[in-house]
């Protein structure tokens, strides 16, 4: 059984169980390893990707649900918001172990793509589903504000 969709801007057909979570289809079938497995229940955000521009937890979304849609992973980030987020993440030295950071970057990018100047409350709302056990949260917050400023400037 195969599912066709656009993966990082490229038309892709994956031959896999349509019930397989998108996370494992991306990782083990498409071979893109930036998206991480953390909980398998949409509780930690490590597997966050964009489907039609919106952040989703790929660990609970079946492959069949993205048929015909646009899926973007950390490897396919292109927008100016994404670049600003990644630059701010480096400037403010956000990552520690780094395992959750693909998901953090995906959630932060989606936030800035829909909200050019998020408040602290907006950041809490958009980012509280992304757990970081190293607790890099203060730097994530600062980096989102810095990315917003750099886009504005």
């Amino acid at each position, binding site marked *: 059984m195969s599912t066709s969709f656009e993966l990082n801007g490229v038309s892709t057909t994956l031959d896999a*169980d349509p019930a*397989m*979570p998108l996370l*494992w289809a991306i*990782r*083990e*079938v498409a*071979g893109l*390893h*930036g*998206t*991480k*497995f*953390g*909980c*398998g*229940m949409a*509780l*930690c955000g*490590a597997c966050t990707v964009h489907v039609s521009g919106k952040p989703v937890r790929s660990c609970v979304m079946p492959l069949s649900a993205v048929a015909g849609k646009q899926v973007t*992973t*950390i*490897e396919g980030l292109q927008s100016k918001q994404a670049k600003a987020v*990644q630059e701010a*993440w*480096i400037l403010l*030295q*956000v*990552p*520690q*172990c*780094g*395992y*959750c*950071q*693909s998901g953090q*970057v995906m959630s932060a990018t989606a936030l800035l793509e829909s909200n050019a100047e998020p408040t602290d409350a907006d*950041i*809490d*709302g958009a*980012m*509280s*589903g*992304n*757990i*970081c*056990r*190293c*607790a*890099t*949260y*203060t*730097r*994530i*917050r600062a980096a989102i504000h810095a990315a917003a400023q750099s886009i504005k400037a």
Partner: protein
Amino acid sequence: MIRPSPAAASSTRRDFLKTAGSATAVALTIGFEWLGPPRRAMAAVGSPAVFAPNAFLRVGADGSVTVIAKHVEMGQGAHTGIATVLAEELDADWKQVRVESAPANAKLYANLAFGTMQGTGGSSAMANSWSQLREAGAKGRAMLLAAAAQEWKVPVSDLTVDKGVVYHAGSKRQAAFGALASRAAALPVPDNVTLKDPQDFKLIGHQCPRLDVPSKVDGSAQFTLDVALPGMLVALLKRPPLFGATVKSFDPNAASAVPGVVKVVQVPRGVAVVAKSFWAAKQGRDALSVDWDDSHAEKRSTSQMMNEYRQLAERPAASALKVGDAAAAIKSATHTVAASYEFPYLAHAPMEPLDAVVKLTAGSCEIWAGDQFQTVDQGNAAKAAGLEPQQVSIHTLFAGGSFGRRANVGSDYIVEAVSIAKAYGADGTPIKLQWTREDDIHGGLYRPMYFHKLEAGLNERKELVGWRHVIVGQSIMAGGLFEVMVKDGIDPTSVEGASTIAYKIPNIDVELSTTKNAVPVLWWRVVGSSHTTFAVEAFIDEVAHAAGKDPFAFRRDLLEHEPRMKAVLELAADKAGWNNGPMPKGKGRGIAVGEAFKTFVAQVAEVSVDDRGRVTVDRVVCAVDCGIPINPDVIAAQMEGGIGFGLGAVMYSAITLQDGRVEQDNFNSYRVLRMNEMPKIEVHIIPSGEAPTGVGEPGVAPIGPAVANAIFAATGTRVHVLPFPKSNQV
């Protein structure tokens, strides 16, 4: 010039690790040959580098400087710290520096704080590497200088080095390290080198960007999860639902019928489903039915165990510290204070669930893992595979967090992976063992549950004259490789932070009652101080209140003989505005201080408590003294992260058992800190010329009591049971 000694762990910890290391070496007898002196520099096998003067450094013809890290990078910044120290003495250009993980080789890469075994823990990476890596870098520099002097026929003393380039001012000649590398490689390694005066440091104490950050921002960093080898299979293991239960029988048919499942095999820890993908292995495991023999399993509930602990606290126990006569001092005191504190089991819950890839043949075992305990893991893997330790090789990858979990004497996840590969047929098929989050939360090796009982006596002048502290809980080191460290009934990791209490008190009794049950336990970030610092710092606050004294001033007056601890306490109080008058209604400020692994940390927490009792931690001011600050920004990051890690634990986290069954499954029931709960944090680092100590763990210890003391200041209510009551949660 500073010539610091390499040892830096706290004395009990240091002695433990040294002894433990020796015990390990004897137990594992790994045979690697020293490159005995006199020796010539040699290129590492399989490396394009032309100059490798020692086990820690390679310089390529392209000028690249590769530092070989003997410590795992699990978020704590060890790779960057290690590279900073070596690159400093080498005078390398930071832009040219990269890091590679060392292979498992205890002779070359032992943790000097552990003695003779390779591994990472106890916040020891920088402390034990400091002198070793400075010397390694300085020797490389001396040889590159000698090569330039030889080529240009000028005295070495006329040469200077800056950012990877050697200069001769007189003749205006210059050469990059890469151009000098092959000539340097032919020179003898000097026996002695002069290390830099710290005043001349260009990298240490400055901001070297973390070397691992770019790859962790674009998704290219390689974790064990990301290992993909040709023909690799994925295994999930079904483990017993109760600690101590074993497999009675199982029916592989339903699992085998799942498309993609290749084999179902029994191993000592359970029954494994080996499949072509994670999804197939997961479905196969869900379909697998196993009958368990739970006749020897732990079937008690944690509430029942805690009741037993409370009773044990009333009985005589082993003495961990005895100064004067605390019982008599408290009996004759004019005022007494008493309190007890209860601490739950805690899971480490690193973001990357445990995983390991094993490629096993009849004569070799190759392992890929975020490995934290290479020598122990090599020995345990060899035993499980039926091989010799030197037939086991380990590729250490980035670990997606650990907090102690990946360093355990049984090498649980490594041994599982090797056992599965062996049961599968040991035919060289790479097999990745993947834990799920539920496996992790149910999987044991928790921070032990503890009960603490404290009593204190004040004299008529309200001076603290007696202190009695009884700790009840399981031993981390009993019954394993580190059993030798348990002396006279005292496991130092159960009492550190309490038996090392810094306050000047004339009569002190610290006792330990060690319990036994089948729940496996392990060190968890900051180890004993994860509970002892809470008990000591929450209780000293109660004593200060009983004495009618300011909690900061009361502590400070008992720390006159401990200048470094006193200095962090004063700095944190000063920066937090401790003496700027009272907080508004509904807000409170609390303070706590502690020492762990010879690093001193004080924190002041500010909280808001609303009219329903819900607590928000608004701000934390942290002061730290970790000796010479190697990477100030990494130190700040570790304090921030340690505060968040510790805060989540005291506010939300607990592993509980009901009739032996773990009641939590995933991040919905095992709550950890999230973005909206993270306070604002300021970190202040004490300038120091002392040898560097670690920063990965010590920031975790004071936050719990600082917040508990702040809640008291805001509400008049003390916290005696962790995690905080649900009524405090927003």
